[in-house]
């Protein structure tokens, strides 16, 4: 849907700008060990998940210590986003979007907790604590059993209830972009 005219202008501009510049002219190379410090993203296939693991029982304590103040004792009724319940409400006039009712990937939960939570001190939980609290939130939603445990092997295998609930915009459908059709 892009304008042909714009693309031509863009190509000319970018072509003129790239000229003979080399990577060595700008910035500095970076080692794999240094990259590791910031390389925190996790994909749905589990790529990026760290070693370690945690149980629902351990997660209950982590949640009480770090999360309940905003999200409520059982992941609902708090001052910030509700994390639990809402399954079956998405087509109603009052949809309740939670981890259990809406989130399509369990890997996203781990990634988001590790990068952004707890809100005042993101990054303060260990990987074990992050697995544990993710397990606890999923158990509150009936997705992981009460005696369950999560690690890099089991997390990507979890099938979230709303996994099939998303329809890609045809223009940017990952399954069709870049000649995949």
């Amino acid at each position, binding site marked *: *849907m*892009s*304008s042909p005219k*714009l*693309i031509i202008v*863009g*190509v000319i*501009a*970018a072509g003129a*700008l*790239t*000229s003979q*510049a*080399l*990577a060595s002219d*700008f*910035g*500095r*190379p*970076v080692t794999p060990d*240094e*990259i590791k410090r*910031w*390389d*925190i*993203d*996790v*994909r*749905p296939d589990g790529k990026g998940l760290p070693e370690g693991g945690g149980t629902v029982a351990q997660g209950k304590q982590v949640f009480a210590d770090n999360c309940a103040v905003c999200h409520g004792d059982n992941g609902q009724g708090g001052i910030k986003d509700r994390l639990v319940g809402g399954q079956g409400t*998405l*087509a109603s*006039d009052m*949809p309740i*979007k939670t*981890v259990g009712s*809406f*989130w*399509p*990937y369990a*890997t*996203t939960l781990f*990634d*988001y907790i590790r*990068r*952004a939570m707890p*809100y005042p001190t*993101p990054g303060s939980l260990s990987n074990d604590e992050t697995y544990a609290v993710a397990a606890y939130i999923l158990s509150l939603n009936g997705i992981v059993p009460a005696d369950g445990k999560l690690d890099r092997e089991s997390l990507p295998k979890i099938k979230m209830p709303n996994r099939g*609930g*998303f*329809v*890609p*915009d045809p*223009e*940017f*459908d*990952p399954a069709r*972009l*870049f000649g995949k059709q």
Partner: protein
Amino acid sequence: MTDQPELPNDAVASSRLRHLSRRRFIMASSTGLAGAVVAGPVAAETLADVPPREPGADLSAHSERSKFVKLGRIPEAGPGKRNVDPDNAINSKAPLDKLVGSITPTDLHYERSHSGVPDLDPDKHRLLIHGMVQKPLVLTVDDLRTMPSISRIVFIECTGNGWENWKKADENLTVQHTHGLVSTNEWTGVPLRFLVDLVEKDHESNWMLAEGGDAAGVDRSIPLTDEILNEAFVAYGQNGEPLRPAHGFPMRLIMPGFEGNLNIKWLRRLKFGDQPWMTRWETARYTQLLADGKAEQFQLRMETNSVITSPSGMMEIRPGYNRISGLAWSGHGKITRVDVSTDGANSWKPAQLNNPALPKAQTRFQMDWVWNGKPTKIVSRATDEMGNVQPDRNSFIAQEGTNALFHYHAQQTWSIDTAGRVRNVLA
């Protein structure tokens, strides 16, 4: 259609326009209505009332607004959650009702952030570029500033802009409330294509993760289409100066025409891969819940949109001559036409577009209107160069339902009653 503002070309009309303009100005000054930017209680009825000239204040390091001008954003915590404790605000909206032209003043550009507004030390800030590349690099702000740069005027719009009106219209809202999450600035920085070539991206890599250095580490997966590779850039400049912290200092991604959330602020990492990462923001957050309970994902482009900013919500007009003015924008390209209806979308007339109408930037439109004093509704409808036409409210809701929360871009209707009061309505 003409691109030039239509000006009265006979002396009678011109004189009448001046007279009425002055009358309106006086009314605005004395009542504080009609979007009055100038707040002076005492009007000058004759030239004798205009104060004598006198030496002004000392020259200074930077210019403040006139003490007569009151402009500010409105911090909000979510749809309908206004007048909140600043601690709880997640966005602040630009005062579209008080702005003229098409460039948003830097300090009034809307803001939306997910973990406050960090003020990062540029000397310690780093941009890591890695993943499916041959030469992973760490760049400093100075590195970016020595690279070839471009400057471009573009709009950025929060995906949640318009979210007040999904289910109902609160009649006490101004256009700042209904549409204040869009702004247009000139941004300066390094083309993404230059950085991609610099690190020698693998051909198999078609997706890029962009991540911020804010506490939330906001991150989005970006498909590397030709359009995005040609137009995206990493900006360090905003309206001629370094970025403001609220807008990503010291560097941010600019994605012309795409969801505001993709224009990652406080940019600290670009990682190249071969599939989307399915981050929280592209799954749980910025997806549109349709009426059947399915959610549309990767609706990355912002749509063809417009709104009349004057007269608009909570203003008051008088019968006779009025000037209708507003803003139009599209993530698809240039605005080519804006039609305005002054009879509740029954009939339409083309408005004048102020030049230049730049691609993926806000364009000012205007039209003369003589109001007969009877209740009516005014509406604007934008068309872009790809032929996209802004939908009316009913067709839009029929397609999207009322739960979508994001990408609201239906035509905005303002109702006007016999007293000239302008109010927000659905249609």
